């Protein structure tokens, strides 16, 4: 997972820089992302998804109590 995260950082450095700042400041505020970050639903309702590109995704959960973001999926589509 870590390798795939770093691969995304290499491939999309600007987008990933923005995304890391977003995660640090307001990881659940999907309204300010112009549709790039979505809260998934149904069986995946606790997971957020960032569309890094048309083919790459980062999916993460937010532990609000401990102020931790856990990345559960990085790179590749679907």
């Amino acid at each position, binding site marked *: 997972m870590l390798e795939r995260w770093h691969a995304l950082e290499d491939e999309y450095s600007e987008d990933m820089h923005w995304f890391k700042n977003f995660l640090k400041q307001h990881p659940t505020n999907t309204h300010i992302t112009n549709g790039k970050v*979505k809260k*998934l*639903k149904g*069986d*995946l309702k606790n997971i957020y998804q960032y569309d890094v590109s048309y083919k790459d*995704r980062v999916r993460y959960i937010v532990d609000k109590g401990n102020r931790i973001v856990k990345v*559960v*999926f990085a790179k*590749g589509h679907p």
Partner: protein
Amino acid sequence: MITTILSDDVINSTELRNNQKRWLEKAYVSPISIISGAKKLVLLNREHAKHMYSLIHYAEMIIRYCEERDSGKKGESDVFPWIKHLSGKAIEEFHKELFFTFQKAVDSKDWLTFEEMLNSWIATADAMTNPEMVELITADLAKEEFTRVE
């Protein structure tokens, strides 16, 4: 029973030309119909037109989806083909949210929220096609090991 669907002022093209500013200001608030020979046109606020077109577009979509459900097709849809990747429970959740959010959009004229809801479900269905994501549903993330990244 008489139901008024469209309440408007009706003018001809000469009247529009002669008092253009007045009618344009009025059209911003409520529709103005213009008769020009055999042609009947309407001037109306662009935001109202956008709302009407969105409402028709999504209402048609929902009606077709309801017809599919009524015909006994469950777990598959031509309108929302991606629902085949969702669990039965998730499909029912989507069905409820579809109507709830549609009603809210009709009342508030906020179609962005409705579109966001649809896009979130599409993304969910898309994610469900990935085995790694399906595993997560039953995984105990508290016991998973994560590497800290600054």
